[in-house]
Each structure stands twice: as structure tokens, then as C-alpha cells.
């Protein structure tokens, strides 16, 4: 009875003190406390604040983030302090009927052995009616016999070298995926002189077709991948047949053709929105754990391996085969190549087919490794693809690889020294600087600059 009386008394007195300090005194605060609640503070198992009550709650955890049970926590506001013990989940909570300041204290002696408070044992809490006022104590040390959960916080190497290595691996991954997209851009430029602004939309297409086949239609991923590459390559063939070859025959200038690709880019982006909407679409619903020396997912290793194999394959194709030599001949001097009996149109058709197929593969792998594809994924990548190709030296396959790796590494490593927001700006800046001092790119030939 006495306790209840004291409770009502404190409930009456309390608002007078803190109301000044509290930013939004609620008129109902004092009236509800005076309305006959047996106590202004109650320890409750869980807190469900209403318009007339406030909640003070928290959770005690040790340094391993395991809950601390059985510790005594006390809440007071002038009147009788109310104590409670933390639950098996480490939680404690009080429901109070008056807004204002409360003092929360932790009884250090009730903490399990080995735990010490990290930052004092008292907190001043401002309760607001209808709201949750959190209270916490950072505890140092781990509990005896508490299960340490190795997965609670990931174990990655956080040393300076570990961070550096991690960024290197991410840079290599991004670089190799970019290279798959960049090589087609570079080949098309090399053989036709066209800067294809719509090339990145071919990358997006690969991702979306992956979503259609692997997720919507449920085709096994590898098979879906093959279908996607074939379909994307076909779009290259058809595109050259229906658009680019006739335009070459009409004698359109290169600038004119470039603007045509800008139009195509715009149209394709909205076609993707028209069909797939504005959101991100996955190509796979599985998530793998990072593993191995590079600390990336198994799929990412496979993607890197595919990229390396394909890039070597394309390199060999260009260096060793008749078709490859013919392609290089067309790239070097088209009239001469035509004069020496090379079917230039056929070579260019082949280049478009390969470029679109590789771009589709790049989009599929990109969506697989980075968790999905959206209508503007390609458009954002274009800003990395052009620098990659230009850096490496336009028109060379190997240059596209080197340029892509440089861009991948620069964007990822720059996060170590620059702010994350500036990573793409840093890649573009590197591009400008390289162009000023070595306009032909890292591997390009001087003659192409003129």
C-alpha cells in the first residue's frame, strides 16, 4: 500500500521536474499518471508503449554479443527505484506512465564473472509517451562458458594488408568482368571505327535474358547461360545485318553513327523498363559464402576463370587463325583488306556477333556475381567500359583486358584512400591524366591518335 502511494506521489511529482527539459511536454502526461495507475514505473516482460505510457528498454550483451542474463537493472525517478533482472535473451524493460527524465543503473555485482561495464553503470534516460526510450550498457569481456559464435562477426582479415588484398581481389573480379564487355566495344571500334554507346545495353540484355531463362523459366543455370550467350550473339548478327551494314553502305559518317548508337541506347533502356519495370532482377536465388585466397564466392572464381579463358580464346583467335588475321587486317586498313580479297562485311558481321555474345556473357556473370540486373546497370557500366577501352588503347583486344583491369583495380583500391563516393570519379580522372600524357592508351599505337 505504501509502495503504491509512493508510486502515485512520484508520478505526480515527476512531471513537474522534467517537463521543462523535455522537448514536447504532453498535456496528458500528468493527468494519466494521476488517474490512479498503481505505479509510475513498472518492470514488464515486454514493452508495448501506448499513447499514455512510455517504455524504457534495453538488452545486455557481452563483447561476443551473447546475451547476459540475470543482471539487475534499476530504474528510478526520485521515488522508489524499481529493479528487474535481465531475461534469458538479455532484455529488460520498464513501462512508465510519465514522460521525463529517469535514471537507469546497472548493478555491477550481479554481472556474470569476467564482465565489466565499459562505459559507466548509470544512464539518464528521457522517456517520451508513446515511444521507446532505449537504454544500453556496453560490457567488456566475454562470459565464461558462453557459446562464442564464430559467425556472429565475420572473420575477414582486417589488417592493412588484409584490406588491401581484399580490394585487389575485388578489383580483379570487377576488371575481368568489365574486360568481357570491353573487348567487344574495342573490337567493333577497331574494325568499324564506331564508338558504340549502346554496347552496355547489350550487357544489360545478357542479365535480363538470364533472369528470364534461369529464374522465370527455371532452366538450369549453365544451360540458361548457353542460351543467353547464343541469343545475345544473335542480336549482334541481326543488328549488323539490319542496322549497321546498311548504314555503312549508305556511307554514314562515324559521328553520325555514334549519334545513332546514342538513340539506340536511349530506346533500349526504356524497352527494358517497359518490359521488366524499374527494379533489380536476380539471375539466381542462391547465395554462396566467400572462400579461398581471394575471399570471393565460388561463382565469382568461376566467372573470373570463364573471363580469362574467353579472353585468351579471343586473343588466340585474333592472333593465330585466318579469320583473326583477316579481322586485324580490316582493323588496320579496310580498303587494303578489301582489295586483298577479304570479305570485309563478313568479318565485321562476325565481330558484331562476338562482341554482342561476350557482352551478354558479361551481363549474365555480372548479374550472377553482384546480385542482379536493372535497366540502368549497363548505362552505369558504360562509364567504366569506355575508360577501360581508351586506357588500354582502342582497337586492341589485349589492351581492353589491361585497361579493364586497371579500371577495376583503381575503382576498388581508391576506396582505401579516397571516399567511396569518389571511386568512379577517380577512374575517370586517371583516364584524363593518361590521355594527356599518352593519348594512344597504355598499349595503343601512336598512329591511331592522329
Amino acid at each position, binding site marked *: 500500500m505504501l509502495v503504491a502511494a509512493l508510486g502515485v506521489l512520484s508520478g505526480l511529482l515527476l512531471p513537474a521536474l522534467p517537463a521543462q527539459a523535455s522537448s514536447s511536454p504532453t498535456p496528458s502526461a500528468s493527468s494519466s499518471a494521476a488517474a490512479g495507475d498503481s505505479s509510475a514505473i513498472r518492470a514488464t516482460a515486454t514493452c508495448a508503449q501506448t*499513447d499514455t505510457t512510455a517504455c524504457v528498454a534495453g538488452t545486455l550483451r557481452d563483447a561476443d554479443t551473447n546475451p547476459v542474463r540475470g543482471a539487475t537493472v534499476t530504474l528510478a525517478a526520485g521515488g522508489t527505484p524499481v529493479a528487474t533482472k535481465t531475461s534469458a535473451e538479455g532484455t529488460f524493460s520498464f513501462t512508465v506512465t510519465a514522460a521525463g527524465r529517469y535514471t537507469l543503473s546497472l548493478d555491477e555485482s550481479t554481472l556474470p564473472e569476467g564482465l565489466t561495464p565499459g562505459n559507466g553503470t548509470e544512464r539518464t534516460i528521457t522517456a517520451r509517451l508513446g515511444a521507446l526510450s532505449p*537504454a544500453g550498457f556496453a560490457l567488456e569481456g566475454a562470459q565464461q562458458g558462453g557459446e562464442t559464435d564464430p559467425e556472429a562477426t565475420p572473420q575477414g582479415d*582486417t589488417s592493412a594488408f588484409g584490406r588491401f588484398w581484399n580490394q585487389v581481389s575485388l578489383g580483379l573480379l570487377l576488371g575481368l568482368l568489365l574486360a568481357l564487355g570491353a573487348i567487344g566495344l574495342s573490337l567493333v571500334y577497331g574494325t568499324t571505327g564506331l564508338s558504340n554507346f549502346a554496347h552496355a545495353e547489350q550487357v544489360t540484355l545478357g542479365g535480363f535474358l538470364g533472369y528470364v531463362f534461369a529464374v*522465370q523459366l527455371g532452366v538450369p543455370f549453365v544451360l540458361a547461360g548457353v542460351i543467353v550467350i547464343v541469343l545475345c550473339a544473335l542480336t549482334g548478327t541481326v543488328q549488323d545485318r539490319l542496322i549497321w551494314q*546498311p548504314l*555503312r553502305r549508305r556511307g554514314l559518317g562515324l559521328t553520325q553513327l555514334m549519334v545513332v548508337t546514342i538513340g539506340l541506347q536511349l530506346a533500349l533502356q526504356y524497352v527494358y523498363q517497359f518490359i521488366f*519495370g524499374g527494379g533489380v532482377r536476380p539471375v539466381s536465388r542462391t547465395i554462396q559464402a566467400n572462400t579461398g585466397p581471394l575471399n570471393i564466392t565460388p561463382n565469382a572464381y568461376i566467372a573470373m576463370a570463364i573471363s580469362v579463358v574467353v579472353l585468351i580464346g579471343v586473343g588466340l583467335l585474333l592472333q593465330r587463325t585466318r579469320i583473326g588475321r583477316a579481322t586485324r587486317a580490316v582493323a588496320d586498313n*579496310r580498303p587494303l583488306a578489301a582489295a586483298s580479297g577479304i570479305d570485309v562485311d563478313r568479318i565485321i558481321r562476325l565481330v558484331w556477333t562476338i562482341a554482342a555474345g561476350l557482352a551478354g556473357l558479361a551481363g549474365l556473370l555480372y548479374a550472377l556475381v553482384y546480385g542482379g540486373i536493372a535497366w540502368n546497370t549497363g548505362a552505369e557500366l558504360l562509364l567504366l567500359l569506355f575508360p577501360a577501352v581508351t586506357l588500354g588503347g582502342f582497337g586492341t583486344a589485349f589492351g581492353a583486358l589491361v585497361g579493364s583491369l586497371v579500371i577495376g583495380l583503381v575503382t576498388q583500391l581508391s576506396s582505401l584512400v579516397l571516399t567511396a563516393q569518389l571511386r568512379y570519379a577517380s577512374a575517370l580522372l586517371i583516364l584524363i591524366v593518361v590521355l594527356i600524357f599518352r593519348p594512344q592508351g597504355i598499349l595503343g599505337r601512336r598512329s591511331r591518335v592522329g
Partner: protein
Amino acid sequence: MPGYRSTGRRLAALAMGATAAVALAACSSGGGTSPSASTGASSSSSASASAVSVKAVPKCESGADETTQLKLGAFIPLTGGLAFLGPAAVGGVDLALNDINEAGGVLGKDACVNLVDSSETSQAALSVANIKKQLQSKVSAIVGPESSGVTYNVLPTVNGAKTVLFSPAATDDGLTGVSPYFFRNPAPNSFEASALGSQIVADGRTKVAFLTFNDPYGTNLRDGMESVIKDSGSAEVVYGAKGKNQEFPSTETNFGSDVSAALATKPDAIVIIAFDQTKQIIPALVSAGWKMGNSYFVDGNLNDYSADLPEGTLTGVKGATQGVNPSPELRAKLAAAYKANGGSSEPTAYGYGAEAYDASTLIALAAEKGKSAASEDIRKNLPAVSGTTGGEICKSFSACKQLLDDGKEIQYQGYAGTGPFNSKRDISSGYISIYQYEGNAPSKFLTSTKESD
């Protein structure tokens, strides 16, 4: 390019060629729309959607008098980066107008809708061109846009036309009191930040990392939570704090770097403040060994990810949303309204649908109270119907209209659970609900808190 001119000019083939890639892309994914319809939304809502009957809302005739008939403009993102939010908001406006018209309309006439695309910040010229078109057709008031950036871009135009612009989603702090014609009813970022920040501290988290996208919405929310966390005395922000410039660009497409940098700080909780990028951030976190149960979401990404992620990935994740996360019934109704008015598929996200509904209803009630649908009268009466005059609480247009007809003051409380406007035309108080994921859907209601300014 001499040497390539000689061949014949097949113009027809060329014209076909220009559209070929487009047609090809369209064909190759034939049927793409219909399966995607069922992705984001749970199957239960699509089942019940058919049971809800919502009629199409009439389109506004340009010649009609906007002062005697409620001609509601809807200025909502149909293209661009926020287009995925469009369907819920369109559904919200249409559903509200459907309910209003079933209750006899406004001023005795059926209310009508004029929908245009608000597009996105990077298409500023189009946003402005579209809202000019809308204003030229004389609307009574406009619901939209969703992006704070687009709001800034169209405000001079709307101010010039002296038309009410009522945003259901723009939350940038800088928009407070920016124009006498600008109202908004999403709970300010500070409310949500306070509620979610409190939850994080109360959960005993001590080292919090923020993965925030670089957008006013993202940084406002982060700043608010950060101050709650710092004030607690028991927790600190270990990654992504204000001024560290660790926010990622809103157009980012790969998150390995951000995730590894965040995890390197050994956080015991991660708050993801993003929109649809969340679908790409989650796999990166899980791959790196992060236990998703220690994560927190915000209203922008408190979605159902059942169609995107392996079963059970998100169990334990907590997230906050303004008002109440749309209930299955409201979701079904929003989807039905969107479809009844020419929507192609179901919304994949339901954020701000409730706010759009409430905004439309408040505008209609303001017109009823002022006995005029002219924008100036709506502007004058909006605060009163939101409850600034301490009226009787009512929860639907028909109930509120009944009270108005009886000459009483009202306080409309709709789906979003917001309080009256303050003097700067932001809402003065609102409820923030905390949900927990079960499986990949935020289906477990934990608690709701009342926040006020």
C-alpha cells in the same frame, strides 16, 4: 567512308533495322510482364486482389471547372530509378478516389484523376515539362512527386501556378516550409530515425555500421539514427558515420567494396539504407559471412524479398516503416486499384501507397470543408481537416464527410497514422512501426511508437 556508298539504299530495310533490336528485345522476353507480376507481392495478395472490386477512376476532362469538381493531379514516377515505387502510389491515389466517388464524390461530383510521369532527377527537363502539362489542364491539387530532387525541380513551377503540391514520399529535411503550397505526409525522416535508432540501442547493439546511399533520404535517416546511437552512451557508429563520406552512389551496381569495408570495422549491427539496391547488398553481405539477423532495414527497403532470395535469408531482420506497413488487405486493394486503372501488373513494392491514399483523401476533405475545389481553398483547409483545429477523429472519407456535413471539425486519420500538420505543413506527429522478418517477408509486427516534433 568512301567505298561503301556504292550499294543500293534499301530504305525499308533500314527503317526495320532501326526498330529491330527493340522488337527483338521485346520478343525474346515475351511474357516477361506476367510472371514478374507475381514476384514481389506475396501470392496471398494476388489471390485476394481479385476479390476486391475497385472501379476505374474517370480521367479528367481538360475543359471541366477545377473549382467545382475535384480534379486531382497525380505526379508520380512512371519511368526512371524510382519507377518501381510508382504502382503503389498510383494505386493509392486511384483507390482513394474510388472510395471518395463511392461515397458520393466531392461537392456532389465524381472526382477525377490526371496522371503524368514525374520521372527522376536526371530527367529534370521532362519532370518540368510534364508538370506544366498537368498544370495547364487546370488541376485542383497535385499528389506527388516521390523524389525530393524532383520536388525541388518543380517547386518554382508549382509556386508560380499557386497549386497545392502534396508529396506522399519526399522526406528531405530541406523541404520543410519551403513553399506555402507544398504539403507532405510521409513521417519526417527524423521520426523514423528516432524510432529505429532507439530499437537498435534497445537491442543492445554497440557497434553499428551504416550502408547508406548518397541521397538526401539516405543521409537524413542516417544522421538521425546516428545521433540517437551516440546519445545512448552505450553504442557507437563504426562505419558510414556522417562526414566520413562512406555513402555509396545511388546508381552503384556492385557492393563488394562497401560491404568489406563495413565488415572490416567489426560491427555487431548493420543498417541498410537503400532502395532496390538492397537486393544486391544482401547477397554481398551474406557471402561475406554476415548474419542478416543482425541487420536493420528502413521503410525504403522493407519489402518482401521472397522472390529474390533463398528461403529464410532475412529471418530476424528488423525494419521500420511509417504508419503501419500496408496490411495484406490494403496491399490487395492498392494492387486492385492500380490494375483497374490500367496498370499492367501488381506493384512490386508498396511503400508510400498508404501515404498517397491519405494525401488524396485529405485533399478531397479540404475541398469538402471549403465547399470549393479551387487550389487556394484546398490549401487553406488542408491543415484543419488534418486535425489542427482539434476536431473529431474519423478514419474514412465517408465518415469524415458526414461529420463535415454536420458542421463539425474533423481530424482525418488514415492508413499512414499521421497526426495534424504543423505550421510548416509537415506532419507534427506520426506512428512508426517496427517489423521483423520471418523468412523473407517483414510479417511480424513488433511494436509501434509515436513520434512527434
